[in-house]
């Protein structure tokens, strides 16, 4: 299974960076629409969320893992399967305290499923 990496976003840059990856036709079925990191407060504590909005074309399936880098160390968060025709926004699990520096989406492709 091929592994693809999407560019990271640094802390504090709340930019909705549009990253479109158009791949060779055997893999031309991913589109990372939006990737970002956000820091939230739920009334009790701050926590970080990494986002990756990924579109997978009909007939294909991918696994997406959003990782957040906090204080130099990567933590794996949302892991999910994105299936054909879906646009999925993948959220990380909550981590207490703020201070994330980067977010990265790792996409593994399962290739065509039908």
């Amino acid at each position: 299974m091929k592994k693809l990496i999407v560019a990271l976003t640094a802390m504090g840059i709340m930019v909705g960076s549009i990253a479109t990856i158009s791949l060779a036709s055997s893999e031309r079925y991913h589109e990372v629409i939006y990737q970002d990191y956000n820091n939230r407060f739920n009334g009790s504590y701050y926590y970080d969320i990494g986002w990756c909005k990924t579109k997978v074309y009909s007939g294909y399936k991918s696994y997406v893992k959003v990782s957040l880098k906090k204080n130099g160390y990567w933590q794996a968060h949302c892991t999910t399967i994105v299936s054909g025709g879906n646009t999925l926004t993948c959220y990380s699990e909550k981590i207490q305290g703020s201070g994330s520096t980067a977010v990265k989406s790792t996409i593994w492709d399962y290739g065509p499923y039908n």
Partner: protein
Amino acid sequence: MNTSSNIISIKVLVLCLLFSLTLSSTSCYSKESTVKKQTVSADTPWYDAEVIDFKLETDTNKHLNSLFHSIAGADDKYIAIISDGGYHVKAWTDDIEYKDWLIYVVTIIDRTTKQTVKTIDIVNILGKCAYPTNVNYIDGKIWVYADTYHPDTGISMNTEYEIDPVTEELLNTRDINNSEDATANWILDTYNVGEYKILPEQVLTETEVYYVLRIVEPDGTIAEVEVKDPNENIYVIPTIISLNETSVLIPAAMNRDYNFYKLDLETNKLSKADKGTYSWLDVDQLAGSYNSPNGNIYTKTQNGISRIDMENKKLEPILDFDSCAVNRNYIPRLEIVDCNEDKILLCGSYESTNMFKSLLVQDFIIVELTKAAKNPHAGKTILELYAHEGGIDGTISDAIIKFNENNSKYYIQPTNRYNKRDYMSYDDLRSDDDYISADLKASADLSYELASDIANGVGPDIIMNASGLGQLNNDNCLVDLSPYFQDLDSDKYFTNIIDGARINGKLYQLPVCYTIEGIQTDPALAGKTGIGFTTEEYKAFIYETLNGTDIIENGQVHYFALLFNNMRNTFINEGLVDLTGPEFTELAGFVKDNVRQNSAIWDYEDEIDPEELDNSSLAASNNKAYYCNCPGISGYLVKRARIKNGTAILGLPSSDGRGPMFGTKLSVAVSANALNKEACIEFVRMMLTDEIQKEFVLNDNFVLNREALRYGLNEAIKYFNSEEGQNNIYEYSLGRYVRVDSKFTDEDINNIENIILSCSKADSVDAAINMILIEEMPAYFAGQKKLDQVIPVLQNRIQKVLDERK
């Protein structure tokens, strides 16, 4: 946004899969047959296959979140496999380290014995600051790439670690680049060319996409070369091709086309190559290519492996995937890890046929192919297998391999020489009705060719998934399978499904997996029979429950043909048609008074965001009932969750309120002129074995074996009640996976079983008769003719067709 158009567009795909109608123009084909014997030639190459299912042991005391495998590399001594995954972490606190949750392991397997000789814990070797991202096994060493944080400086670097696979000693460390540079990526592929190592990296900015090649030179210094085009983005460099020890060819996929670059590794000079020189290369295929240490480049095609002959500018086939006993479904997806034409090593993940297990813990396979001195099947008679709709899935592929290994005289070989798409014209299709008509004609043309070939002894021996090709259902074309399946126990098998597939008492095509066609809704809304509707009851259902919007969306003629087919055994029996009874009049009157003349025209628009579709009013309106051709367990459960109390699938409107029909998803038949009927029947019997029935049901099918069905339903419910499964249930009407919040129970298993038992008959459309109905009935529906004027014409025409088949 027109959501209904997207549903209709998706319905085209569904119709493609499910509607298979035939038209019999004439049935005059010769009964004489010239049997053409074909045997497996001794000259046909064969590769013996060693297939290993790779598994990594993990800590069973922890919850495994995900585990994926990939190949690091191989040589004559070892195969190195990377396992990358993680355990579940309840709460991410600052004291959690990689060793607490991260799985990053390299397994060293002896190439000859295929036994694991070492399991190297990379996390342990690299220490607490390094996050491994990739591994290569080259020149007998393991090269790990990791994002390494330096707490003293606060800087993170992409770092290369060299590890001895035998001693696990960390031999060398080299920083490549700052991993937190705005556009930096983790290191993925590496290419060894002579004494150079090339590490390509795609760079994404807000405005452009290009590549940077990091070149590790023989003295260890690192040079950088940008591969950039001033006018276009470079999206993919699928591979790097060695031209010699110091120069490479770089194919690049641009916006709309391909470019080729040459790089001199001694001078780092990049130049654009003449595109025309390399136009013979299919760049899209190069993503799966392999650069052999002997200088050859091998690439995969759909049918096998070829060597790229740069000198003569062509692909030289060296392996046909049919020349080995490896599942034909997944072998094209494996990576070429090593290749020297007599010995080929392939590895990769494959999608299990089991749809009810976690996709986050992956299956991985190692396949070593060795050219055999002689073809073990030489001399065997070839039985040709044609799969009409749906192709050959993983389970059938395995069954064919098993048959071929065990049968000493016969060899099953799939064929793709018949294709309905060759007869299908997609021009001028503007509605569901248009599509059905076009599909009818295409099926008719194909089935005529098939029937002629079968009758003349040059057709396939085993025919799968053709139960919708009604023209074949006679003694001229197919064997009556009844004698071979007459003692099936109805406690063990759904014998009502087998009986429902009979034509005039004969079983021409055994239904192995099937769909359920009907109205999924609240059982309290059923008519008096409890399993369907009379036409009066359905009329009340439309206007009272559905607020006047029928969920069967066909126009009058196709709607009528559907209801006619549902009650076919009332109107046609033992080759005689009788439309004079009250049932026919009732059906015609119901359609005339309650069904729109034509189906809706499709309205093509740009691709719609599926998230918007989920929230559409169309989705909301289907919470009362759905006209379904339910393809399997997940199809039933997803609708059951969306429709209020949607536990029943009821029959279409009829005169007697009968239960639903079943469609045939996978069927198997034997040609009346098969080269050896007994051998073919042996394959048919395999379809009903417990082992294969279980595989089918885990692949999300309804099956004949009742115990296998219950087992599969249990597994399905367990999976769809899990967090992962809730987000991955297939919504067949939308053509994609969705999230479902409902929890399913044993009651759902009982309901499904009862629905299957209530199925009345197979939906085996006879296109010849359908076309007559479609031609003659509109005059009645439009009020131009009375029904008693149309009936004699119908009877006469239909009887003629039936008589021609006697």
